[in-house]
Structure formats: structure tokens, C-alpha cells
């Protein structure tokens, strides 16, 4: 048993400093105060001065509290007993179940060797045309939903989770509103998915430092299950809260901020988590869907900005719809060449026309005369929004493709679409409403 120190010399924010010997970087300690016990992690060593971040926060910690070093880094229990359970950011039960202590694993382990990665190959079907057709989700992808508060991003997350064919769902909640937590729990319960779900939930009223642990704990557990052959879907909501916690600690540690107060290593910190998404050859996989709320609806804000550079695309959720612009699945081309011959061409063509439609809308709003071409575009845009973008639409990819051709044929002549003749020959609907009108 390691020595107990009973003199805390400095308390600033959530960081305490003690004089201690034989301590290792990232080691855990137990801080016992009048309010109970909390874990703390060593975040700086300087001679015999040891700084720790206290998981339950610095508030109420007294200079006379006890600090006992544990000689090990942060760990979490890993077994099938986790299934259906709900924990907090330190891995303590939030439900009425027992504390789990068997088979402890370390969190924040090393990265996957890039040469052991494989090219993603499996589409994850969601039934949402804006995803399946235009920005296909792929197993092992890491992808956030960019949104502002008030948008139904948690609904979208849970819908994808329920519809996706995965073995296991891990929900990492950071600064989650209690209502939202209940929403997830109820939805998964109703969908019969609870017994293949694990929750690690930090709510808005929990200590900041515990928020930092949620992605690492969730992903460490996910990694073990994936190595056992499970296809794991990790949902992280909301990563902006995670980044804000990083910022808070960095400021306490008097680090020079780089951009709007965030630390210079924000990119590396986010990447360390998102890059855990992987497809293990011969075993399972981790697919990560996150939520990144954009303060002030500003995508250039450091959190969405750094996230976008790390993740394999993003879904923009605005006005309750997945926006075609800005939304991107970088892995779509890995799978959309084998779905159907018209998938790629139609996907690009429809978006290009939608961009033209937006221009016409702008012209119209400025009071310009709408040319015949503009009229066609306006018609197209309205149909596209109603039939493709509406999130209540729930159809398989193949139907969505057919629908795409129908919409095009309803609005345009085939050579106006800018699509390759080869595709038009094969897929252009022979008898669209429009052709009938014209022959009549």
C-alpha cells in the first residue's frame, strides 16, 4: 500500500498539488474529503510537486484532505456484465446494479497500427435517403452530426442506432441533459435494444473532469468488444461539452490558449478519440457517431472545425433536415460503387442540380424574372426537399434511387441533367408524368 499524503498545497479549479515521492505520470490517486472519495489523475510532475485533476472537482476539497496514490492508471471493468448497464464518467453505476470490479482494463490505450487497418467495405443502412443515397454511412466510420441546440440530433442518433445492424451500442453522454438521457434509455428499451446497450453518462450537473473520461471509457470498452468480434456502434453526445471540459482544465493549468481559449492540442485530443474507430481484420469493428453542437451555429468555431478535419465527414442537421451542402461521408465511395450502377452518378447529379436550385431561389428572392430553366429548378428543389430531405422518409436505398430518377424526370429533359449518357440510357424513366403531358 502506497503512502498517504495529507497535505494539499494548492487547489485551483479542479487541479490540486501535493508534495509526494515515487509518483508516475497519469497515475491515479484517491482523494478523500469531507464529501466523500474521488479519483484524481496525475497531470503534471515537477520534482516532488505533483499536480492532479480531481474527477469530482476541486470544489470543497480542503488542504487537509487525504491523497492516496493507487500505483495504476485509470481502468474500467470489462465483461458481458456491462450489457444493459448505466454508469457515470468514472465507471460507477448510475443504475441500481452492482459495482463491477472484475477484469479491469486500461483506458486510453495505444492506437491501432495503421498498417493493420483495412479498407472499409460494409455499408450501414439507415433508411434515410440523405444518408444512404447521398452520404452513405460505412462500418468503422467516425462521423459527427453538426448541429445547434434545439435540433433533433439525439433523435437522429437514436434512430440510426435502432436501425443500424450492429451487435452492440455504447452511448457516451457528455453534459447530457437528464431528459435526453431518459429519452435514449426509453427509445432503446422500447426498441428492445437495451440488453445490447451500455451507457456511460455524464450529465450536465456532474463534475467537469468526469466528462473528460466518457469517450475514453466508452471507447476502451468498445475496443475490447470489437476485438471479440462484435460490431460496436459508439454514440458520443455532445463532443463540444468534452472540448469545453478540456478547455477548462487547460486554463486552470495556465496553458497558452491557441484559439478562442481552447488548448493548442485540441486537434490531437479529439483525434485520439475519433481515431479509435476501426474495422479489425478477422474480428469486429467500432463505428463512432458523435454530436458536435456548434456554438453560435458557426462551423468555423474551433470545436466543429477541428472535428471536421478529423472525422470522416459530417452530417449537418439544420431545420430538422440533413443538409446536402456541407454534409459529407468521406467513405461513401468505398461502398457506393457496388450498390447500384446509378448510385454515384445520380448522387452527384442531384446535388449539382440542387445547388443550381439554390441559386435560382436567391435570384427569385431578389425579384428577378424566373427563366424557364429557373422554373424547372424551383420545381425540382421543392420535390427534392419534400421527398428526399424530409427526415420522416424511411425507405431502402434502392427505392430512394428510383425516386431520384422520378424526381429528375418530372422536372427536366434528360440532357439538362448533366448526367452521363450511359446512365441516362439505362435509367431515365421511360414514361414520366412530364413526357406524357408533352405527348398529349
Amino acid at each position: 500500500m502506497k503512502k498517504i499524503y495529507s497535505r494539499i498545497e494548492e487547489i485551483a479549479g479542479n487541479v490540486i498539488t501535493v508534495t509526494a515521492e515515487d509518483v508516475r505520470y497519469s497515475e491515479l490517486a484517491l482523494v478523500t474529503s469531507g464529501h466523500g472519495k474521488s479519483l484524481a489523475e496525475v497531470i503534471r510532475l515537477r520534482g516532488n510537486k505533483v499536480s492532479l485533476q480531481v474527477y469530482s472537482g476541486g470544489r470543497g476539497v480542503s488542504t487537509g484532505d487525504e491523497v492516496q496514490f493507487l500505483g495504476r492508471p485509470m481502468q474500467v471493468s470489462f465483461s458481458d456484465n456491462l450489457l444493459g448497464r448505466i454508469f457515470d464518467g468514472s465507471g460507477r453505476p448510475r443504475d441500481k446494479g452492482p459495482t463491477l470490479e472484475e477484469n479491469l482494463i486500461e483506458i486510453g490505450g495505444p492506437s491501432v497500427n495503421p498498417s493493420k487497418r483495412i479498407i472499409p467495405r460494409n455499408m450501414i443502412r439507415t433508411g434515410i435517403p440523405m444518408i444512404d443515397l447521398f452520404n452513405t454511412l460505412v462500418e468503422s466510420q467516425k462521423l459527427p452530426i453538426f448541429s445547434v441546440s434545439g435540433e433533433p440530433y439525439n433523435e437522429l442518433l437514436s434512430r440510426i442506432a435502432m436501425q443500424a445492424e450492429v451487435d452492440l451500442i455504447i452511448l457516451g453522454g457528455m453534459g447530457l441533459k437528464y431528459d435526453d438521457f431518459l429519452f435514449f434509455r426509453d427509445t432503446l428499451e422500447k426498441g428492445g435494444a437495451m440488453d445490447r446497450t451500455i451507457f456511460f453518462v455524464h450529465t450536465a450537473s456532474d463534475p467537469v473532469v468526469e466528462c473528460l473520461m466518457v469517450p475514453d471509457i466508452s471507447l476502451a470498452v468498445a475496443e475490447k468488444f470489437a476485438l471479440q468480434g462484435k460490431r460496436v456502434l459508439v454514440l458520443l453526445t455532445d463532443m463540444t461539452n468534452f472540448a469545453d471540459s478540456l478547455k477548462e482544465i487547460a486554463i486552470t493549468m495556465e496553458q497558452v490558449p491557441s484559439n478562442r481559449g481552447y488548448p493548442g492540442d485540441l486537434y490531437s485530443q479529439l483525434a485520439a478519440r475519433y481515431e479509435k474507430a476501426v474495422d479489425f481484420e478477422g474480428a469486429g469493428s467500432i463505428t463512432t457517431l458523435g454530436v458536435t453542437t456548434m456554438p453560435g451555429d458557426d462551423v468555423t468555431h474551433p470545436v466543429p472545425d477541428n472535428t471536421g478535419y478529423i472525422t470522416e465527414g459530417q452530417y449537418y442537421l439544420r431545420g430538422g433536415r440533413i443538409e446536402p451542402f456541407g454534409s459529407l461521408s468521406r467513405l461513401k465511395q468505398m461502398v457506393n460503387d457496388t450498390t447500384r450502377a446509378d448510385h454515384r452518378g445520380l448522387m452527384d447529379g442531384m446535388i449539382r442540380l440542387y445547388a443550381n436550385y439554390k441559386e435560382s431561389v436567391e435570384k427569385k428572392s431578389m425579384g428577378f424574372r424566373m427563366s424557364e430553366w429557373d422554373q424547372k429548378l424551383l420545381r425540382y428543389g421543392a420535390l427534392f426537399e419534400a421527398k428526399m430531405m424530409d427526415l420522416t422518409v424511411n425507405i431502402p436505398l434502392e427505392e430512394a434511387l428510383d425516386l431520384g430518377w422520378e424526381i429528375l424526370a418530372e422536372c427536366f429533359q434528360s440532357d439538362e441533367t448533366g448526367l452521363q449518357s450511359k446512365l441516362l440510357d439505362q435509367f431515365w424513366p421511360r414514361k414520366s408524368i412530364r413526357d406524357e403531358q408533352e405527348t398529349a
Partner: protein
Amino acid sequence: MTRTTGTVFGVNGNMVTVDVKGDVSLNEVGYISVGDQKLKSEVIRIRGKQAEMQVFEQTGGIGVGDTVEFSGEMLAVELGPGLLGQVYDGLQNPLPQLAEQAGFFLKRGLYLDAIDKARSWEFTPKLEAGATVSAGDTIGTVPEGIFDHRIMVPFNISGEWTVRKVAPKGSYKVDDTICQIEDAKGTTQDLSMLFEWPVKRAISLFEERYKPTEPMVTKIRMIDTFFPVARGGTYCIPGPFGAGKTVLQQITSRHAEVDIVIVAACGERAGEVVETLQEFPELTDPRTGRTLMERTVIICNTSSMPVASREASVYTAVTIAEYYRQMGLNVLLLADSTSRWAQAMREMSGRLEEIPGEEAFPAYLESVIASFYERAGVVRLKDGSFGSVTIGGTVSPAGGNFEEPVTQATLKVVGAFHGLSRERSDARKYPAIHPLESWSKYPSAINDELVAYCRDILLRGNEVSQMMKVVGEEGTSLEDFVLYQKSEFLDSAYMQQNSFDPVDGSVTIERQRHIFRILFDVLASEFDLHDKDNARSYFNQLRQIYLDYNTSEWESDAFASREAELVKLINEKRTGYDSTAEEIRNRVGSAVG
């Protein structure tokens, strides 16, 4: 000589402060002992008896008092035959071999030989005993893939030496002595095929450096025709996330007409490297008939790998590039992304508590970026042959705003700027290089005057389109409207290119010159178009055929018939030819390029 040692005094992130007993030098490598692991680190600041070191590994578990051994060497890479086809991390650890030992995950403190010591090479001597040599001179060659890999006198040997013995033609391992040299004082030295070179020092064993003028063909129309890159030149690709920086570099790494490509995946997604890793061994290089992997070296230090080795990775890459340039080869280094490298510097600078510059980047950011790109160049070597290193770096500006320190510092030093635009990538106009903002100081493979004429159309067409936003189509003259249609045609039919199409994906210079003629005819002709709808549908038709033309195989029947269709359609409506264009065409003659 006994090595300097020290003990750990402090740990802060990936920076460790060490109490040093003895002498240390800046950038010297040391190893921190933690349990049975030794963690590679580099001295980045010395203050009195303390050295600050950046650790190339996770620092968890390091404790005060842990021992540190200094190596006496600066951070260096191994140079010799067997680099091609390898996949290294930023410190030249071979990742596939690492995986054989450690499985799915990277293992801290595990460092392997960069070059296979067991492999034999067919050595042919190129000089005889008695010859006088100095650093960089060729002792002999070994075949490596399709190249004659020059076995050279190590670059760090100074002065003139006399060759005493050279190994006869035969099979040798990289560690075998293949040459013995002697200096004026009679000191002898044994040379093998392998030597080390410190990554942060440029290799400059050439006679003369030239201005880059010869095009480095990328087979991307917009680059080769409009924003060319020259062999030995430098260029950058800034752009917001998702605009297509990585895809652009990936297709360049496949199709560029160079001998060797060094891919430096610096601090971005691991998944993107995997595509290259898995596909290159399967893809044949049309120029050589061998796999692309045989001409490629991949330096892979992606975003979740240690940030200090990310900082080192671009230097590892450029040093290997310079090494092959010494063999008279044309090397292309593609770094994705230089911003992550700059951020690695920023992280360390922050830990060192240096006075921060703009956006907390260190004050020396500009000079470090400048001296990195300075390592590019086309040179004449001592034996009269020419070699080049071309450097292309992506930049990932915060918020996609080019007014930030890394983009600005880079723009000051590069010869071409391919700025990617969010607007264009949102509209799926690939490559999303902004045709009005981008520039190149290098000559085009197609006649510069013809290209300038096209660019002028684009510029004026854009002005019309801006104006139309204010006055509407109805307030625009038919003449202006046609100009606008022409600029749109240039953009959509020629500048945009489908990277994933087997034919359109890579277009030779020969084909570019050929199809450019038709493009030019469209842009320079006056057409009989009676109203705007007529003009729009005419240009739609032209575009449709031109797009099909682009995807028809070179010189195939389909290609010929598409071309005939285009010519017919142009002639049908042509009423005249713009006089300026006529004049240029007459001056330039039929030789487009």
C-alpha cells in the same frame, strides 16, 4: 567515450525535463527508461543543467528519477537500398514489421531496423582502387525495383579520400563492407551500403541548383494546363476540411510523372493511408509496368500517433526524398497536412512556455516552413546528372480561412497555390481548386498565351455571373450571357474532372493538348445564337458531348466520334472567330504546347 546520462525531473504532457550529468546537444536523441521500455526522445531546449525533451511516445508511467541515456546523435534516418515500398512511422519505424511483432496496436518503445539487414543486393562497383572520392560519390550500384540505386560515399564524410579496396561484383547485405577508403593521414574507414543522416539538415551535395521550369505532369487538367507545378518546384493546397486536399494528393501520388513518390501522412486520418497502402501494391505504374508501391515510400504518422514524431515525420520524408535525388531521380514529396506539423510545433512551444505568436504558433513558424520548402529543388549533381525534389503540402487552415499563420507563411515561399474552395466542393465541382484565386509561377505544358486567353474568358464570365446576380438574366445582354456560358463550359467540361473515372481520372499531356484545341475553339468562336434559352441549350449540348468525350478512351472509336460530333456542332453554329484568339492562334501555330 562514455555517454551522458540524466534523470527525469518533471513530466508535462509529452515534454519531460531532465537533470543532465554531462554534455548534451540540441536535437540530441536520448532514451528514457520506464520499466523495461526505453522511450525515444529529443532534446529541444537546454537550460543550465536541465534539458527539455520531447518524447516520441505516450508519457504515462514516467516517474521523477527515471534514468535517461543520451545517444550523442541527432535524430537521423537510415539511408540505403530497401527504402522503396516501405511504410514507416515518423521516426522511420517500419509499421508492417511492427505489426508482426506487436499485433493490432502500436507498442511503445519498440524500435525496429528501418532497412532489412538480411536482404541481399546485387552490387556492381563503379570505381576502382586508387580513385579519389568525397561525400556523395558513387561507389557502385544495386538494382532496386526499376532503379539503379547508387551506393554512395556517406554524406557526412568530409574531405577527399582514396579508395583502397572495392568489393567485386556480387551479392551483399547492406551491412557488409563494400569499400574501404583512406584519407591523407592514413586513417582508413570501412563503408557499407548503409549510413545515417540527421533529418533536420538538408542534403546539399550538388554542383548547382536551377530554376524549376520543366513541368511535373500530374494528369490533372486543371493543374497541368492552368496551375502547373514544375519538377523541383513547390506548391501548396490549402482548403477547408472536405474540400478535397487528400483526394487531390492521392491521385497525384498515383499519376504524377516522376520516378519516386514519398507520401508523408502527417497528423491526419490513418484510414486515408490505408487506401494507398492496400491499393498501391496492386496497381501497375503505366510507365514501368511494375507496381506503384515499388516507387513509393510512405511515412505515416497519423493524428492519434505521438505528436513529437509527427513533427519529425516531414523531415524524415524530405531526407529520404533528397537521398534519392542524389541518384539523379525526380522525386515528389506529398505532405498531408503541413498544418498538423505546425500544430505539433505549437504544442511543444506551448509546453516550453515560449512567447506565443499569432494563434499561439511559435514566432519561428515562418522560418521553419520556409526552410522546409527550401529543401525542394532541381539540381545538377557532381556527375552531371540532374535530380529533383518537388514538394507539395496541404494546409488545413482553421475555419477554412486562408488568413491564418500557416497558410500565409506557406504562400510566401511556394511556387504554386492550389486553393480549394468550400463553395466548389459543396457543389461537387472537383477538383475544387478555385480557378480565380489559385496561381502558379511555373510555365504550363500548354502554351501560356492560349491558357491566358481561356483564363480571361473565365474571369470575364465570372464578372457577368456576378453582375447577373444584381441585374438578373433579363438585364444581361446576349453577348455577355454567351460569355458567361463559355466560362461555365470551360469550368464544367475542362477544369472539372472525375477522379474516380478510369479514363477521365488521369489525362496525359498529349491528350490535354489535343482536347484543349476543341475547348479553345468553343471559347474563341462566335456563334449564331438567337436568344438566351437557345444559348443555354446549345452550351448544354456541347457540355454533354464534351463530358462523354472526356470519358472515352484515348484514340478509341468513341473518342473519335465524340470529337466529330463536337466539331460538327461547333461548325454548325459558328459565324466567326474572335480576332484576338485568331491572332494568338496564328502566332502560336498549331503547336498548342
